[in-house]
């Protein structure tokens, strides 16, 4: 499978990355070269094979649902959480107006 410029632009829109026309044009052959290479995987019969989804076998565990389980990152950290926000105000993250 290969991608054309319209597809590259669509992927960029899905990925929320603004690209200029020149950047789309530059990415088209790069992505196609990589996609042509990974086509190699089509050679292998994978019927009946389960996908490996994690780096090690094991049961994923759930942590206890308690606030403040960790004193550094538990609950009540509003100001610390907001400290790195580009636009925090009144104890909230600030974003441009969403509803007209």
């Amino acid at each position, binding site marked *: *499978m290969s*991608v054309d410029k319209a*597809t*590259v632009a669509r*992927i*960029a*829109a*899905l*990925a*929320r*990355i*603004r*690209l200029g026309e020149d950047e789309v044009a530059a*990415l088209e052959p*790069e*992505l196609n*070269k*990589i*996609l042509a*290479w*990974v086509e*190699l*995987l*089509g*050679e*292998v019969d*994978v019927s009946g*094979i*389960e*996908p*490996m*989804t*994690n*780096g*090690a076998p*094991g049961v*994923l*565990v*759930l*942590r206890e649902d308690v606030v403040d389980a*960790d004193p*550094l*990152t538990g609950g009540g*950290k509003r100001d*610390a*959480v907001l*400290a*790195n*926000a*580009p*636009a925090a105000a009144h104890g909230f*993250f600030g*974003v*441009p*107006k*969403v509803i007209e």
Partner: protein
Amino acid sequence: MSDLTELGVTAIRDGVAAGDFSAREVAQAFNAAIAAAQPALNAFITPTPDHALAAAERIDADRAAGRPLGRLAGVPIGMKDLFCTQGVRTTAASHILGHFVPPYESTVSGRLWDAGAGMLGKLNLDEFAMGSSNETSAFGKVISPWRRGHNQDPAPIAPGGSSGGSSAAVAARLCPAATGTDTGGSIRQPAAFTGIAGIKPGYGRCSRWGIVAFASSLDQAGAMARDVRDCAVLLEAMAGHDPKDATSLDAPVPGWTAALDADLSGCTIGIPREYRMDGMDAEVAKSWELGIAWLKDAGARVIDISLPHTHYALPAYYIIAPAEASSNLARYDGVRYGLRDLPEGAGLQDMYAATRAAGFGAEVRRRIMIGTYVLSAGFYDAYFTRAQKLRTLIARDFTQAFASCDAILAPTTPTAAFALGEKSDDPLAMYLNDVFSVPASLAGLPAMSVPAGLNGEGLPLGLQVIGRPLDEQGVLNAALAIEQRAGFVARPARWWA
């Protein structure tokens, strides 16, 4: 005391404990070496001399008061700038995190400070650990201390990547050891390129909590140092179960250092025939042969093995890793932390797109794009699920091989270090550098690179040992046997300061 920067982790710890020198003197010596080398090598994004001094002073006070000292007491180390450090800027070498100051400490770095280590600085890397040459960093390239022509040719050489700041700094004696992370080879390849040792433990050994995520099913922290023993000492302090990482391995950390043993009697080493590729670099092939002879000399039996799906490991990796990256990096939205680019009159969606365009470099964008494509409707099964099934087959190859051998020996990289700029215009050529390191990453196995010698141009070559699940000890022991026989004492000429 002669130059303290010549000492490794064990020697510094023991010397501080014995009172041969103070921890403060050690920190000062490395701080000075870093300040002198930084303009030429650019190994650090953020040097933190005060952090190193403060930690050293605490150790000196503890010793004076007769309090017990940790296993890394007085040892200043370099921290890859992918580990969140409380109150110290953590960038992932990306413009998008250029001013991010974590309010918390990663589990691994926290464990190291608890063991008595201090931080000399945050080390440069490829942006979000995506690269094999450290050329994708938003904070400039790292220059390897090594040069071609037996240190005579001034053309800048790649320190490898993504842990290129770590490898350059350890090789240049700017720190006795450093942390790294390895997703497809990012500890082993830079270690091989710079003539140092580096171990990626099995997946789950080190907590990923507080490490900036790249590909979560592959990311694993590890240790980089000048020798195998120092790697073991550092890794012991880094590893261990962490309830805050759901994939953290709930198993005790063995005493790897105490059990180091280069006698390989009764041990069988497998040589994978699929790694003998057409057109293989003659000097790499020769160092592999030397490695086989060294392991036999250490008492091991050496047999040929087959890993039949090796050929598919790289393309599977370059689907899985970008797919996971595109998902992980969705968090950089210009809202909660990091860069925000808000064009005049822009709405929320435009802000996301502008922020991510301004914040991510070319390689990161490329991988997010590939990942987004292979996860998109209509392509998910054809690409992503198929790659995950190949991953199953690649892991199964190893399981079957380990029925007849205890560890595997292979080169770490297909060539010695390349020059900066040599591969940066061709993403695919850069990806192919991971050919020998990616299979063990996909299978989640422990693997280590150890220096084997120099090539004809005077650049280091590394050998890689891959072990069974949970058998870091077997990896360390085989690497130690190689280290003792390789007698690698070469070092870069100190041209940078």
